């Protein structure tokens, strides 16, 4: 009997299409943690180079090209420099929190990546290995929870530095991140409505079945995109840093590796946000128009292809981040708040209601999410997409009437206008030295 049980266990353990479990699961998790951490850190290092290169190209310059071939060793040189630099401790700073703050922004930034599925499952001798560090059933909720911890690092850095600029940066970042988290969460609820599950791997697999969500959730995608920019403190939402007003905001007083940790946190937040945009709206690791590679039975080449696909999609959003950073100027603080609370939040709320109604109506009409219009286009997807395009046109026409970011003025009536014009013609231009 014992032998029979052992044989069953043996057979079960060696089925490459069943999820891996037991001791191999532990070993695979450790390997995945090490590999993902390393790859993420190297990616972040090279993102700093990419940022400098893209900024240079946009400004018609060459960018760093002296260290190594075409400047490719620049991140190594930067890292070495940051490690060798002196650690400064301002005498007025509150040391325990001053030291803790970079760690508190660094850790949440890195661990949010743990739940993101980055490739199709890999079959091994010990069973099917999920290509995410931990495919938590609460998936997206975990990301919302951990990502909002990141603000503590910034606020504590700003407060413990005992510097007025740093404090202003910290205050701004807390206000900004709290404001935009609301619309970010609401924008994602519409994704959850369609997928019916918060686990990221099931969001991906339902997108494989029904088509990518960026089209049926177009406005949700834009809301999430804007909120993701605000959450990662990137331009045009980089008020916590604001070099021109606050020197460097919350990390003014930091030097050496502690400064570097804020930097790594920013770039890893960026990577996570790009990976999330990919996972929630662009089918995650799914390859477009190639069903074989996206579905079981799994094979190692499917894992490789989907990994490349995921990297390309995430890379595109990372490029979008940089492209926007080097195009747009920073918002004023009141504009930031009014966009967050007066534009994003009402739109997100209204959109959620409309989408919930639409999904309910489609379900009542008996249209299954997998049904296809004329055997090709998914019906559900197409109908919601058309609805979204109509809504998007409405929203952008309304927003585009000079209201999205208001001009810095009270309205000037025709009487005042005439008066101002008369004034400018009456009074000649001042002569220099007058």
């Amino acid at each position, binding site marked *: 009997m014992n032998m029979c049980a052992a044989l069953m266990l043996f057979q079960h353990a060696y089925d490459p299409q069943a999820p891996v479990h037991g001791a191999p699961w532990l070993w695979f998790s450790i390997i995945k943690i090490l590999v993902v951490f390393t790859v993420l850190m190297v990616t972040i290092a090279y993102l700093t180079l990419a940022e400098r290169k893209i900024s240079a190209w946009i400004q018609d310059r*060459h960018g760093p090209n002296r260290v190594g071939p075409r400047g490719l060793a620049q991140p190594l040189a930067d890292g070495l420099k940051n490690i060798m630099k002196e650690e400064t401790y301002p005498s007025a700073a509150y040391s325990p929190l001053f030291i803790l703050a970079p760690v508190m922004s660094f850790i949440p930034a890195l661990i949010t990546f743990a739940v993101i599925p980055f490739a199709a499952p890999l079959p091994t001798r010990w069973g099917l290995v999920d290509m995410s560090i931990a495919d938590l059933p609460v998936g997206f909720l975990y990301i919302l929870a951990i990502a909002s911890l990141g603000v503590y690092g910034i606020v504590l850095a700003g407060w413990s530095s005992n510097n007025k600029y740093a404090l202003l940066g910290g205050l701004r970042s807390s206000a900004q991140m709290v404001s935009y988290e609301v619309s970010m969460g609401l924008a994602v609820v519409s994704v959850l409505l369609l997928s019916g599950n918060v686990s990221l791997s099931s969001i991906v697999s339902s997108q494989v079945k029904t088509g990518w969500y960026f089209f049926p959730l177009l406005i949700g995608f834009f809301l999430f995109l804007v909120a993701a920019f605000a959450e990662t403190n990137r331009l045009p939402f980089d008020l916590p840093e604001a070099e021109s007003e606050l020197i460097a905001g919350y990390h003014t007083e930091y030097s050496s590796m502690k400064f570097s940790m804020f930097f790594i946190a920013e770039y890893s937040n960026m990577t996570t946000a790009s990976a999330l945009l990919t996972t929630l709206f662009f089918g995650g690791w799914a390859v477009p128009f190639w069903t074989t590679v996206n579905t079981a039975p799994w094979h190692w080449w499917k894992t490789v292809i989907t990994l490349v696909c995921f990297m390309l999609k995430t890379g595109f959003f990372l490029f979008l981040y940089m492209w926007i950073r080097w195009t747009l100027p920073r918002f004023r603080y009141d504009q930031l708040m009014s966009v967050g609370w007066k534009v994003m939040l009402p739109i997100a709320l209204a959109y959620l209601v409309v989408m919930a109604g639409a999904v309910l109506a489609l379900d009542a009409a008996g249209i299954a999410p997998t049904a296809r219009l004329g055997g090709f286009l998914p019906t559900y997807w197409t109908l919601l997409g058309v609805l979204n395009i109509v809504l998007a046109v409405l929203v952008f026409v309304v927003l585009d*009437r000079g209201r999205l970011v208001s001009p810095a003025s009270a309205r000037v009536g025709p009487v005042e*206008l005439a008066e101002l014009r008369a004034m400018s013609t009456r009074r000649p231009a001042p002569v220099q030295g007058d």
Partner: protein
Amino acid sequence: MAIQVKVLERPIRQTSYVRAMLKGMAITFKHLTNPHKVTWQYPEQKWDLSPRWRGTHRMLTDENGKAKCVACGLCPQICPANCIKLVPGEDEEGNRYPLVYEIDEFRCIFCGYCQEVCPEEAIHVGRHYENSEYSRAGFVYDLERLTAQTHPVCEMWDPADPRGE
């Protein structure tokens, strides 16, 4: 009460954020893909100096390899920065020559008066600018070093050809 800044109301096409943003992104993308970059790759790629560029000095020599300078003393006289040190000497035939001739390049303002005033066309400012040193003393060029320079010399402004053509 909060301060209100009055700005004239502008037409919608000037105030719209979305439209302006898309336009801006198109412009930056155009520059991103544009292969023409304005940066000069300095040590490898150098600017063509003007023929009137006034840089590092050079003392010209005669056919015997001796400096043309006759130690007349005009250049230290005219030098506004007072950077030329000249001690004249005289040989047994009565020819004057500089015993000491030093130019402090660190102090020099490269006005080129020394070249203009020189009756023998001996001292020149040159078309050369890379003269960094590790010490201040290294900037004091003596006669040997001035004669050893090989760079082309400056063509001074010519009233007959004011545009240098």
